[in-house]
């Protein structure tokens, strides 16, 4: 799982650098050559969407999502384990829900293209779907860990 998380972080780094370079080149193009580019702007926005969704499995695997733990802090370990099971099941349910929603979009609109780059929805949504799919895998991994490795529970 650590390797998987590392892989997603590396891909997201590429998108982060692409995002920065797209905006930086855009500034030079507009201010120096008086020629702004809608392609660069769309590429930057695509990079943002992609990096966020590709990082969700990393946040899930490494348990770095923003949570409110005021209740959890006062619970005994056994109750925390129950809560942890609940959290992983709901997180997995969330991923399934989003994956079904993406599949429904793709049924009819997979080939609808973005305005500037003419990127089909199938490609635009690929990082989104991949991120959510591996978020599901991350949640299921933590769920199995709760039962197979009791020390992990309630962490």
């Amino acid at each position, binding site marked *: 799982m650590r390797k998987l998380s590392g892989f997603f*972080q590396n891909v*997201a*780094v590429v998108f*982060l*650098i692409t*995002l*920065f370079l797209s*905006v*930086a080149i*855009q*500034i030079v193009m507009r*201010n120096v050559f008086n020629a702004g580019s809608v392609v660069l*702007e769309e590429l*930057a*926005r*695509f990079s*943002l*969407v992609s*990096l*966020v969704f590709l*990082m*969700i499995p*990393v*946040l899930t695997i490494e348990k*770095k*999502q*923003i*949570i*409110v*733990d*005021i*209740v*959890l802090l006062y619970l005994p370990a056994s109750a925390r384990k129950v*809560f*942890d099971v*609940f*959290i992983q099941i*709901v*997180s997995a*349910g*969330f991923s399934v*829900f*989003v994956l*079904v*929603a*993406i599949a*429904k*979009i793709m049924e009819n609109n997979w080939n609808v293209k973005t305005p500037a780059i003419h990127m089909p929805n199938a490609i635009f*949504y690929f990082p*989104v779907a991949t991120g959510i799919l591996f978020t599901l895998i991350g949640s299921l991994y933590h769920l199995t860990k709760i039962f197979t490795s009791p020390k992990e529970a309630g962490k």
Partner: protein
Amino acid sequence: MSGGLIIGIFIVLMLTGLPIAISMVVPAGIYLLVSQIPITTAIQRMVTSLNSFPLLAVPMFIFAANLMNNGGITERLFDFAKLLVGRMKGGLAQVNIIASLIFAGISGAALADVGGLGNIEIDAMKKQGYSMEDSAAITAASATIGPIFPPSIPLIIYGAAAETSSMKLLMAGVFPALVITAVLMLMVGFFARKKNYPRGVDHKFTKREMLTIAKRGLPSVLMPMILMGGMLSGWFSPTEVAAVAITYAIFLMILYKSFSFKGIIKVCKETLISTSSVLFIVAAAAIFAWTLTVEQLPQQVSAALLGISHSPAMLLLLTNVILLIAGMFLETTAAIMIFTPILLPTLLAAGVNPVHFGLVMVFNLMIGMLTPPVGMSIYMLSPIAGLPVNKLFKAVMPYMIPLGIALVILTYVPEISLWLPNLLYGSR
């Protein structure tokens, strides 16, 4: 399924420790299924909310701040601030505030200030005999300036949620940040006399010392000026200015010989964690807020608030109370995304300017970062200061007085926020 029930499910899920973003999507998803609205709406809303040019600034400002913190630039800012106010009684406490103001001109996030400057400030203050509680409290209180002075990540997120000009919002933060700085400095001045804080620097700077510190720190201090100048001249949009900040930070790292590709990749990874946790909430809040809008919750809240009063002053007081309570329990981004569509229509109807309200909202939520139970700044400072959070919450309490005074001033003197954006871009 009513708006109240959707919020109720969200709060219950959030309290179980479920990630805030997922706690928002789940009730919204149930609502879509129950109301037989196509579930594709959920992912479309989430993706569309992120597919936004203004939001590109968020990862880039976080990236720039992380570069500054990792490249030794923050330390130079601190030394430069020492030159400015270090000779005062309680000098290092004042330096803490001034350094936060300068850092605010680069980073735009309170947690970047706490994480970056916090270590240096607390360490220096401890060496001069300040108690750990006092050092940490001043650091936490002064970090509230970060998201008020431009650039500001919360203001950019508010701009996206309220469909208000990011540029106007950012410019609106300049004078409010100075007001907050002034009241905090007055409070520190009072404590300096009461608790007999030492002078930050016990001797007068010689010309040579002044020149050395200025030379060392000037390139770093120039950064906020370049960013502000770029925005004011119309050369860069707030999003583009974030890219300029990164470029300049990398330039400074090369200049200070702290640049390495390995270091940059490490900073990229830190940036991605912060960015994605914040923007995942933005995406989730897009569908959550949409379900509340479809259920006409904003109209219901509006009717309830306008039923109490039509006076903008009274409505602002009520919204301040709501936001202060919200800030105690909710993470800033989530609170902005949820409360902007609910509260803004009422205030617009009462004639409150959306730019002014944005400033007031963000400042309320920044104060919330210092209060229990979800005081993110305090949680971040706790390991840095090596103090338990309950001690820190207690230590920061006296600073609620100047921050409260600043909140009242900013709420009831809208000209402080609006004068500069109106001058630059007109009042419409």
